[in-house]
């Protein structure tokens, strides 16, 4: 036992944890959040010499400072959540639908078209048209890559991604066709006088309906994925196509049906964005949310109720960052650094929940 010190053990090794009690996992997540805030505070102070507490205060203020800001936040969360919920069934099936951006745009275009051409219809009928057409448009945009994958085994990631650009081009063509006033190259607020096809305010809140629709959708999607036969099929196909075939599941049918649902919900998000929020259509209607929703879906491990929390966090970070940028005259990128640090720590905490580090010194204690 004399030559123990001559051995060169690895300094640190990564070992997978068997399991971790849920309260402890949440404690780790909480601690990592605190650490993120501390590190950002340090960074804020060293770079800008601003009081970090003030910065955080203004961040919170910008997001939940008053009723209007809060509702604005809820509107943003609802939109992001709606797309994430749309991605949930596809991702659960391991069908990497990164075409939400395009599906949202198609839904938005359909809604805008209804608002423009069918404004004379009675309100319930108009809404029915908008909902139906946005669902159809989103579903169609998802059906194309799904059908190709089911029949020819094409790669869905590339395909859905490309479909985004087609959707953007279509939008930009229609914007020039529908532009108002002439030469502005924007569609402008549609039906700004009649407000035909605009969401009615609910309980005095103009974004109330957005939140209600999306929350109901979230609950439905949760039930659909967890308790229905189709939800079960999605889970089996996602786990292993061979197992699905063995179980007698029609894989092609499941794939196409699931993508129709996924696309339809994303299309509905376009409807909510156009009819319920912006009342216009442009290439920025989706605004990259189709991609942010991918992060939301993964961070919440495709669990729909969890998506509410995660989209809230992401919207909070983004809107908060905007706020401090204006409040303190910071460069926008400076505030983005803060959100990046927080996201990084949130992701990093998952590593420590799943793995532990074993250091050399610990090993020697054990052997001696």
């Amino acid at each position: 036992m004399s030559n123990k010190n001559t051995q060169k053990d690895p300094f640190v090794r990564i070992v997978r944890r068997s399991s971790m009690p849920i309260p402890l996992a949440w404690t780790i997540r909480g601690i990592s959040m605190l650490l993120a805030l501390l590190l950002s505070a340090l960074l804020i102070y060293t770079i800008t010499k601003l009081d970090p507490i003030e910065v955080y205060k203004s961040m919170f203020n910008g997001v939940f400072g008053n009723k209007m800001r809060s509702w604005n936040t809820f509107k943003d969360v609802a939109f992001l959540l709606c797309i994430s919920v749309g991605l949930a069934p596809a991702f659960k099936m391991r069908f990497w639908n990164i075409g939400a951006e395009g599906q949202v745009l198609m839904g938005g275009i359909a809604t805008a078209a209804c608002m423009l051409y069918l404004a004379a219809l009675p309100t319930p009928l108009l809404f029915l048209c908008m909902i139906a057409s946005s669902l159809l448009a989103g579903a169609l945009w998802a059906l194309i890559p799904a059908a190709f994958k089911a029949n020819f085994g094409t790669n869905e990631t590339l395909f859905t991604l490309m479909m985004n650009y087609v959707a953007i081009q279509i939008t930009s063509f229609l914007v020039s066709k529908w532009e108002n006033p002439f030469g502005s190259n924007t569609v402008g607020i549609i039906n700004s006088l009649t407000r035909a096809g605009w969401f009615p305010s609910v309980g005095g809140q103009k974004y109330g309906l957005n939140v209600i629709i999306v929350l109901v959708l979230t609950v439905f999607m949760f039930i659909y994925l967890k308790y229905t036969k189709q939800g079960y099929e999605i889970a089996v196909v996602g786990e292993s196509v061979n197992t699905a075939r063995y179980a007698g599941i029609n894989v092609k049918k499941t794939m196409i049906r699931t993508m129709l649902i996924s696309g339809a919900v994303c299309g509905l998000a376009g409807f909510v964005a156009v009819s319920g929020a912006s009342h216009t259509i442009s290439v920025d209607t989706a605004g990259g949310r189709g991609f942010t929703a991918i992060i939301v879906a993964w961070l919440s491990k495709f669990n729909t109720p969890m998506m509410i929390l995660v989209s809230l966090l992401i919207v909070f970070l983004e809107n908060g960052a905007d706020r401090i940028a204006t409040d303190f005259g910071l460069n926008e990128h400076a505030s983005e650094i803060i959100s990046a640090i927080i996201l990084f720590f949130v992701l990093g905490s998952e590593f420590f929940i799943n793995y532990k580090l074993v250091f050399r010194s610990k090993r020697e204690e054990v052997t001696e």
Partner: protein
Amino acid sequence: MQNNIAVRFENITKTFGSVKANNKISFDIRKGEILSLLGENGSGKTTLMNMLSGIYYPDEGEIFVDGKPVTITSPKDAFSCGIGMIHQHFKLIDVFSAAENIVLGLDEKGNYDRKKVAAKIKEICDRYGFNINPDRKVYDMTVSEKQTLEIVKVLYRGADILILDEPTAVLTPQETEKLFAVIRNMRDHGKSVVIITHKLHEVLSVSDRVAILRKGEYIGTVDTIDATEMTLTEMMVGKKIELDIERPEPENLREALSVRNLTCINDEGVKVLDSIEFSAYSGEILGIAGISGCGQKELLEAIAGLQKVYGGSIMFHPSDGKKSKELVGKTPRQIAKLGVSLSFVPEDRLGMGLVGSMGMTENMMLKSYNSGHSPFIATRKPKRLAEKIHDELEVVTPSLNTPVKKLSGGNVQKVLVGRELSCDPTVLMTAYAVRGLDINTSYAIYHLLNEQKKKGVAVIFVGEDLDVLLELSDRILVLCGGRVSGILDGRTTTKEEVGLLMTKLGGKVGADNE
């Protein structure tokens, strides 16, 4: 330190999560001996050897090579200590030639000198009695040739201690004998050879000493001369076990399934099944033997409706004398709708038979979830079934909702077999039903199969252990290169006869196109 000790383990401990794979293991490997490392699946044999070959690093304890303590953190470290391991799954590059695979990863200075390498390979081959062609590409090689190449590769690196992980699992009896001859040759040249195995008769025929592990603990080492199958099993399992498989006489034989002229072609255009003809009778166990990849998987999948059939027919004959039904061209669900109760335990348990991320309850409904008209899944029945299987087959799981992929291999198999037996099959197909299971569970499964046979089920049993096939089956169908090379009576045939048919079609050499 004694001179004849090649490797000494001292208090080696390795844990994975909460599982102690190896607990304070200490023993020696001598120079110039063949040591069998015997233990059931999950007893920690491979883990221990992986630490010697640099794949894992021990949590505690020390390894001495030639009396000096060593730190092995990578296979490279292992080679510099003269240790080489031949893994169960070969680590070769298919498109490279034998010689290229051998020199791959070596840090030799200068250019790749083809002649020098070939000469050195030839020298190794001559010394130990191997036979390989250095220019042959790996994709042209048989499994046995690939294994030989792996051994030569390790010897080329100057290994004095060779570890072979389950080397005979993929070999025919004849190839196994050849391998054992080479291993004995290496021992006589002073090499230490460790064979990881759980096959008792091989242990007895080839090794000098046997080290036994059980559930991560070191039980002891015995000289092979003093050992018998009974004593070894007792050390391995921890209690006496009846090693006889019963074989009741088949009763009321009735043709349940007839396969005629069945041909399947895979995506690459290769005939994976070629004019297969046989019948399966209810009340008997039909064993299927063959080197792995000779069409066993495709045959079962074709019957289950999972394989595209190019030609031929599979007729199912119901017991109530109704009209026979054609299964070719039907999906699994259509087959089930015909009223054909077909149970299938596929080879790939988590990739085909079960959903790894789901718990026992959810796996119970895999085939039955679609019954009834409600759009919602009914969980009451599957839950009751899960509880029943959990109790009757003694499945060890934290809860019925624990993902089955977190269970041990034996428990996963119990869940799958339990579900497949629960639906009262007329035809039961199992592929490698006991692969990875401990002896107790294996015998429990044989017992279950015999029970089904007595109930009048037509059992088709694809196996890899010829001894078991010979003891369990009423008839044995031997596949070779996608063809039936013979159907033998399980009571009268011999291992050699089966082995010969596994490599040659009805005595003729014809399987070289693989």
